[in-house]
């Protein structure tokens, strides 16, 4: 992961580093696992040359929200398979959520993850620790010990920190640690076991829905608590217009709030539960479209896109949530939620660029400098410059072809999770090579070396 000794020279690509305001054709040299120089005409001197002509070269994508399922659910995914999938998706840093078994609420589990990652991971893995012991939402976990062990944030993701008093205590405690809390905003009594968005599709399908207010009420609460404590709160996977509006107003007031959105909440609506391209003539009840927070209305999707455009939302995060096929092959109510998203993330968000709804620079910024800033990742040791191509930054680079068309084929995913509603869909924009810490961790056959 750290320190490939080889020199890599990426030549002639369009270098796009929106965090640093860079957008120009040029060369990048990586040596000793770090970005060495960024200018045209760099000398080769025994470097491996990668021809990136016609391709986009950006900082390695950073995913601040994913589920690697390891330890405890290795049949769904392992650190090894998950990071391989991440690399295929162009990600060089992933932050894994603590709803493993055992959950990441103790130093021992953090160290397990770090050890396993150092031995088997294709890319950098940064663990996120639990807010509460066992993710039970009752007592604070040993946040200080976890911070010392190396977690980069706290979350009880999978669940909300439902108890307001506990969230307040956690935020106050974190003032001393300088780490943010990422909240999965889903108020349990309002959500009341709803399995999809509460709206006309749920009414048609006879499924219990959860209203947008289940998310918004906790977003509002978390903003109030962040302002009360002065401690930063990060809103995970925003999905509704109301949430975006609350965050926008909070930021305007200077509240310490950041937010992320998933590629699927930027592009898919609750209709995906009802209709699937592979089942044109019937109600699909597609469990691959079951996710928390649920896919919402077209208006909510538009609001999220707008939120990215105007900076209300800081980051795109995949919430990669793999499940084994047998887990999803059941009645809709009983299926676990989650979409396997690493390998489709970039292609899916580029749809918005191709449709003219977002600028390419915006999208890349929200997948590089944006997430790094949201969680303050570059403040950690050895991670200065993360998410950028500045000299000295980690040697993480993603090279992609924004126009390559490809068909989503879940059976060929590197992830063990094939659960995606995008199977068979044609996307435009594909990762060609991923370089992590100066090593090529993924290369599609067509790249010439």
């Amino acid at each position: 992961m750290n320190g490939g000794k080889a020199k890599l020279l990426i030549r002639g690509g369009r270098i796009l580093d929106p965090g640093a305001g860079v957008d120009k054709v040029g060369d990048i040299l990586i040596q000793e696992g770090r970005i060495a120089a960024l200018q045209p005409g760099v000398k080769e001197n025994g470097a491996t040359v990668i021809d990136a002509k016609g391709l986009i070269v950006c900082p390695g994508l950073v995913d601040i929200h994913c589920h690697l399922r390891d330890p405890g659910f290795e049949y769904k995914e392992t650190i090894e398979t998950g990071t391989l999938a991440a690399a295929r998706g162009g990600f060089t840093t992933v932050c894994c959520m603590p709803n493993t078994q055992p959950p990441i609420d103790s130093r021992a589990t953090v160290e397990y993850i770090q050890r396993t990652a150092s031995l088997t991971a294709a890319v950098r893995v940064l663990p996120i620790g639990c807010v509460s012991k066992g993710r039970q939402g009752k007592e604070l976990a040993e946040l200080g010990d976890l911070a010392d062990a190396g977690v980069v944030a706290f979350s009880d993701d999978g669940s909300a920190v439902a108890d307001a008093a506990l969230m307040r205590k956690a935020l106050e405690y974190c003032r001393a640690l300088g780490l943010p809390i990422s909240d999965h905003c889903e108020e349990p009594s309002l959500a009341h076991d709803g399995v999809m968005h509460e709206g006309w599709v749920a009414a048609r399908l006879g499924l219990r829905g959860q209203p947008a207010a289940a998310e918004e009420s906790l977003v509002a609460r978390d903003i109030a608590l962040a302002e009360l404590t002065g401690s930063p709160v990060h809103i995970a996977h925003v999905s509704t217009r109301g949430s975006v509006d609350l965050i926008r107003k909070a930021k305007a007031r200077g509240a310490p709030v950041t937010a992320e959105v998933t590629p699927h909440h930027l592009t898919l609506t609750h209709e995906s539960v009802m209709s699937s391209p592979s089942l044109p003539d019937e109600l699909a009840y597609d469990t691959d479209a079951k996710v928390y927070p649920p896919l919402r209305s077209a208006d909510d999707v538009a609001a999220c896109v707008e939120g990215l455009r105007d900076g209300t939302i800081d980051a795109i995060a995949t919430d990669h949530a793999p499940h084994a096929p047998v887990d999803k092959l059941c009645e809709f109510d009983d299926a676990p939620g989650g979409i396997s998203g690493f390998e489709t993330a970039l292609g899916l968000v580029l749809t918005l660029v191709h449709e003219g709804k977002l600028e390419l620079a915006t999208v890349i910024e929200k997948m590089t400098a944006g997430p790094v800033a949201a969680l303050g990742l570059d403040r950690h040791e050895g991670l200065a410059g993360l998410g950028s191509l500045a000299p000295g930054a980690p040697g993480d680079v993603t090279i992609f072809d924004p126009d390559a068309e490809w068909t989503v084929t879940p059976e060929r995913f590197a992830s063990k999770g094939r659960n995606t509603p995008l199977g068979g869909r044609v996307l435009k924009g594909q990762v060609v090579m991923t370089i992590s810490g100066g090593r090529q961790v993924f290369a599609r056959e067509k790249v010439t070396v």
Partner: protein
Amino acid sequence: MPADLKDDREGQGGTAILAREPPTALPHPAPGTWRHRHILDLDDFSPEEIELVMETTSTMKEVLARQIARVPTLRGTTVVTLFYESSTRTRSSFELAGKVLGADVINIAAAASSVQKGESLVDTVLTLQAIGAAILVMRHPRSGAPYLASRHTRASVINAGDGWHAHPTQALLDLFTICSHLGDVRGRKVVIIGDITHSRVARSNLWGLSTMGAQIVICGPPTLLPVGLEGPTGDEEGSKLALPPVEVETNVDRAIADADVVMTLRLQLERMQSGLIPSIREYCNLYQVTKERLAKAKPSALVLHPGPVNEGVEISLDVAHGAQSVIEEQVANGVAVRMALLYLLSRGRA
């Protein structure tokens, strides 16, 4: 024998015609326009198909009226009833329907939550296919379960009720019952009263009645009316995929005014989450169909209930047993409707 009646049996006489158009006459009956492999809901039934079910049901009623109610139509066909929710009424209705048609009927009462208790739904369905089930009649507590089943079996699936979502055979027998009294439902006002959110009977009736041209009003306490009934707003394209448009009322006296049909729903005590209504007493005060309330409907209005009736809750005892109640006919018609569907499913795939 009169002289002009020759025995012309062996002749070939007649005038030859070289005709382009067929003679002016009705054509031979067209092949059946039945294209359903499964019966999962009424949302994809055309009015002609519903008519076909109604006609076939009349024929089946005649069979049931015979001294020996038995025909050999489905001999050699195995019908399996797979009920994940207990129900004496619907299951025995299907069982009788199958047996009158000469089918072999197997009843399976399956454990409710397949996830916890062993065999998954898909595995069960595959097993039943292996033992030769041609028609699978399924009732399941989860919406969408029969759709999942239908994708993993060659058998035909009839949905006998899935979660809150659909109960097409009930809606068809309700339609048949109404039409046998009123002729048809075109332009008639049908009011459906009760716990709409959790009612698969209501949803399937919305499809069936609106396809046949009825004017529908649904009525119930606001906490028991589903969110999103008005369909997609803004620029969502799926308006044709939403439930058909209906009038929504929370005041039962307004809803029932001049109604031709009053359909009451069971207050589903077992499915209703606590706290959606403050008490049964309040529900009865506000929504029970009493004789006084019923008087606001047309004098000829029919009263229906899918059963089992919570007497004294959804309807008062005197209405349940009164002259306008057709609740018992619904049950009798249920067997005939289910016979018609079994027949059409097995014969219609020509």
